[in-house]
């Protein structure tokens, strides 16, 4: 079970969290303005990263906040967690 560092509560066990998919995909402000192809991309197209992945988590059974994390998909090590709306911090591979 992973340890995840909630930006509000600190290090907590994975079973309190829910995974939320790739981070930094903003919902278009005016969806009606997007053509079908762009809208399909927003809906369905995601990275399949081997390496550092920016992703959303929610501390569902804790403070219930969504936040973002940088996780190395090869090792499951978290490099950083940060609040919604913040920019992903610069990290170097460990």
């Amino acid at each position, binding site marked *: 079970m992973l340890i995840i560092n909630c930006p*509000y509560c*600190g290090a907590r*066990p994975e079973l309190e969290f829910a995974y939320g998919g790739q981070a930094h995909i903003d919902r278009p402000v005016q969806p009606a303005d997007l053509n079908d192809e762009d809208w399909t991309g927003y809906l369905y197209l995601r990275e399949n990263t081997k390496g550092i992945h920016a992703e959303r988590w929610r501390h569902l*059974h804790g403070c219930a906040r969504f936040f973002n994390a940088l996780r190395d998909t090869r090792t499951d090590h978290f490099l950083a967690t940060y609040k919604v709306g913040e920019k992903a911090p610069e990290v170097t591979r460990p």
Partner: protein
Amino acid sequence: MSDLTLVSPAASHKEAGSAAVASPFTGHSKVIAPLGHFGRAVLRVSEDLIDAVSERLGVTLPREANRSATQDDLSALWLGPDEWLLISSEPHDSWAASLQQKLGDALVALVDVSHRQVALGLESPHVEDLLASGCALDLREAAFPVGACTRTMFDKAEVVLWRTGAHSFHIEVWRSFARYVEGLLRIAEEEG
């Protein structure tokens, strides 16, 4: 466990001026006992209003994560950066409404959840081991001191743990999960 059934003798708690509030729990022991009825409300306040709201409520809403504050019969448990669980040991049916009145026009959300959850009290020198049967958090006093509180999981049920003493915890659990949590704790108690 075979002796846990879906039916219990209805344990009840009678409070002044209102009907009996039914309890879903099935029994009590020296270590694990239902704590009776409380007034409860979820309070949502944005950062800029915390001081003002604290003043109106008469209890200082803790800003530190997973900490609680108590003033007279009212406790405020930090559950999230803009979320507190208010617990009153002197409940009545219009308790939440009276709280809403105190808050006045403050831009907050207050929702009465007095009956959403029920409370179990645990008291034992081995209370940390008892909880370790189903909770993955480090609950040593150094890591989780008196007054600490958090939402977490107890086995497959979400609970709020609140440490009320070196050897005592107050557990809030949604009513429908009460017997599940109680059943698991009873097993842990029997196993020692």
